C-alpha cells in the first residue's frame, strides 16, 4: 500500500505485469474512488466554465466529455481533468485526488452569480473498468445495458441508485468509468469479481498510461509547465476569446517552446528508468530529468518522459539515461509508445 493524494492505495494486487496484461488483453478494474468529482450547474455554468478551462466547453454536446485543464495566469497546469456535460446546464468535473482542495478553492475564488458548485468527492466512489472485454462486462453486470459511445456519458438510475457511466479511461483501451454513491461501490466490485475482472493497482495504472504517454499531474504536469510544453496543445482552445492562462500561452506560442515533454525509450533491456533519473545528450551533458519512467510490459523495454530542449533534440535523437552512475543508451521516440 502507498499513500496517494491522502488515500491508501495498493500498488498491485498480485503482479503489475499480470495486471497490465489483463487490461491490454481482457479486462481489469481500478478503484478510482480517490479521484474528485465536482458538479457545476446553473444558468451561467457554461460560460463560466469556458473562462476557467482551457478546452472549448461550448463544443461539448449534452452527453459528451473531453479532456481539459485548469491553468494559472502563467499558463501553467493547476490540474488536468475530464469534463462531462450531463445536461445543458449541468457538468461534472473529474479531477485528481491530490488536487481536489486546490481545484475547489480555485473554482470558489472565481465563482460568479448563476453558478453552483458541489464537491461530492467524499460521498462518491469510482471504478474504472478497462480492456477489450469491458463493454461485455458492462452488459452482464447491468443485466443488459449498453455503454455510451466513446467519450460520452450516461447519467442514469439503476436499481434505484444514481450512477454516471463514462466511456473514458486512462489506459488506451476501450472501457468505462463508473461513478456512484460510495455505499454502492461494494455491490459493483462484487459483481465485477464474479465476472472475473482482474483487480489492478496503481502500478499497472501507471505503466498503462505511460505506454500511451498520458500525463500524470504532479509528475509530467506542474504549475510551471504549460500544456503546450507537455505536447497537449490539442486540448487547448486558443481560439476562444478568453480563458485563464490564454495570454501566457499565446506568448509562448509566438516565442516558440524551448523545451517539450518527449518520449524516451532505452535501446537495451536493463534496469527500468525511474522518475528523477538524469537524461544526458550523447556527449554526456545533462539535458533533462525523467518526470515519469518505468518498464513497458508490452514493449519489454524501459520507457520514460522528460522535458528536453527542442533546439537540439528531435525524434530519433540518441540520448543517455543515468542509472546509478551508469549511462544507458536510449532514443527519443514518437508518442505514444504503444498503439493498438
Amino acid at each position, binding site marked *: 500500500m502507498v499513500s496517494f493524494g491522502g488515500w491508501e492505495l495498493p*500498488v*498491485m494486487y*498480485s*503482479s*503489475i*505485469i499480470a495486471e497490465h496484461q489483463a487490461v491490454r488483453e481482457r479486462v481489469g478494474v481500478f478503484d478510482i474512488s480517490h479521484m474528485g468529482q465536482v458538479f457545476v450547474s446553473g444558468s451561467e455554468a457554461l460560460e463560466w466554465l469556458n473562462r476557467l478551462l482551457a478546452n472549448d466547453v461550448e463544443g461539448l454536446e449534452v452527453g459528451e466529455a473531453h479532456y481539459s485543464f485548469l491553468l494559472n495566469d502563467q499558463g501553467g497546469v493547476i490540474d488536468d481533468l475530464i469534463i462531462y456535460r450531463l445536461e445543458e446546464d449541468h457538468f461534472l468535473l473529474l479531477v485528481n485526488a491530490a488536487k481536489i482542495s486546490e481545484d475547489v478553492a480555485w473554482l470558489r475564488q472565481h465563482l460568479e452569480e448563476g453558478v453552483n458548485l458541489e464537491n461530492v468527492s467524499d460521498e462518491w466512489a469510482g471504478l474504472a473498468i478497462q480492456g477489450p472485454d469491458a463493454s461485455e462486462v458492462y452488459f452482464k453486470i447491468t443485466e443488459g445495458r449498453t455503454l455510451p459511445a466513446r467519450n460520452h456519458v450516461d447519467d442514469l438510475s439503476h436499481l434505484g441508485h444514481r450512477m454516471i457511466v463514462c466511456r473514458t479511461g486512462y489506459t488506451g483501451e476501450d472501457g468505462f468509468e463508473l461513478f456512484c454513491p460510495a455505499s454502492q461501490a461494494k455491490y459493483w466490485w462484487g459483481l465485477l469479481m464474479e465476472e472475473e475482472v482482474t483487480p489492478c493497482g496503481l*502500478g499497472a495504472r501507471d*505503466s498503462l498510461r505511460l505506454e500511451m504517454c498520458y500525463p500524470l499531474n504532479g509528475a509530467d504536469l506542474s504549475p510551471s509547465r504549460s500544456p503546450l510544453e507537455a505536447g497537449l496543445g490539442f486540448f487547448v482552445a486558443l481560439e476562444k476569446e478568453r480563458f485563464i492562462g490564454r495570454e501566457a500561452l499565446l506568448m509562448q506560442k509566438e516565442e516558440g517552446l524551448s523545451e517539450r515533454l518527449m518520449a524516451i525509450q532505452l535501446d537495451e*533491456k*536493463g*534496469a*527500468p528508468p*525511474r522518475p528523477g533519473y538524469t537524461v544526458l545528450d550523447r556527449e554526456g551533458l545533462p539535458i533533462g530529468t525523467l518526470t515519469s519512467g*518505468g*518498464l513497458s*510490459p508490452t514493449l519489454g523495454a524501459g520507457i520514460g518522459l522528460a522535458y528536453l530542449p527542442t533546439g537540439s533534440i528531435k525524434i530519433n535523437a540518441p540520448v543517455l539515461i543515468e542509472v*546509478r552512475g551508469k549511462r544507458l543508451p536510449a532514443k527519443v521516440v514518437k508518442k505514444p509508445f504503444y498503439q493498438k
Partner: protein
Amino acid sequence: MTAPDNCRYTPDHEWVRLDGDIATIGITDHAQEELSDVVFVELPDLGDVDKASPVGVVESVKAASDIYAPIAGEIVEVNTELVTDPSKVNSEPFEGGWIFKMKIDDTSQYDALMDATSYTSVVR
C-alpha cells in the same frame, strides 16, 4: 511464504546457505513476493566486501531494492543466468534465483543470522 531450514536469514530479507567456507546468497520468498516482477539484477563485483555493504540491486517493475553482503568476505561468483532471466528470482528464489557466492573466513557471522523459525516470525 517458504523459508527452508537449511538457510539463515537477515533482516533485509536475504537468505544465506553455507557449504564449507562458501556462502550462497539470494533474496527470500517474502522479498520476491513484495517486489514481484523482477526485471533486472545488478550483480555484485567480485572481490572483498565488508558486512552490510551494498553490493548489488534487484529491480522489479515496482521498485529498486539494494542487496547487502550479509557477512564479511570475498565475493567469488555471481549468477550470470539472472542477466538473461531475472524472473528466476521470483520463480525459484532459493535455487536458480541465487545471486552471489562469498568465501568467508568467520563462520560466527553466519551463526549469528536468524534461523528459519525466527525469520518466519519476523515477517509475520
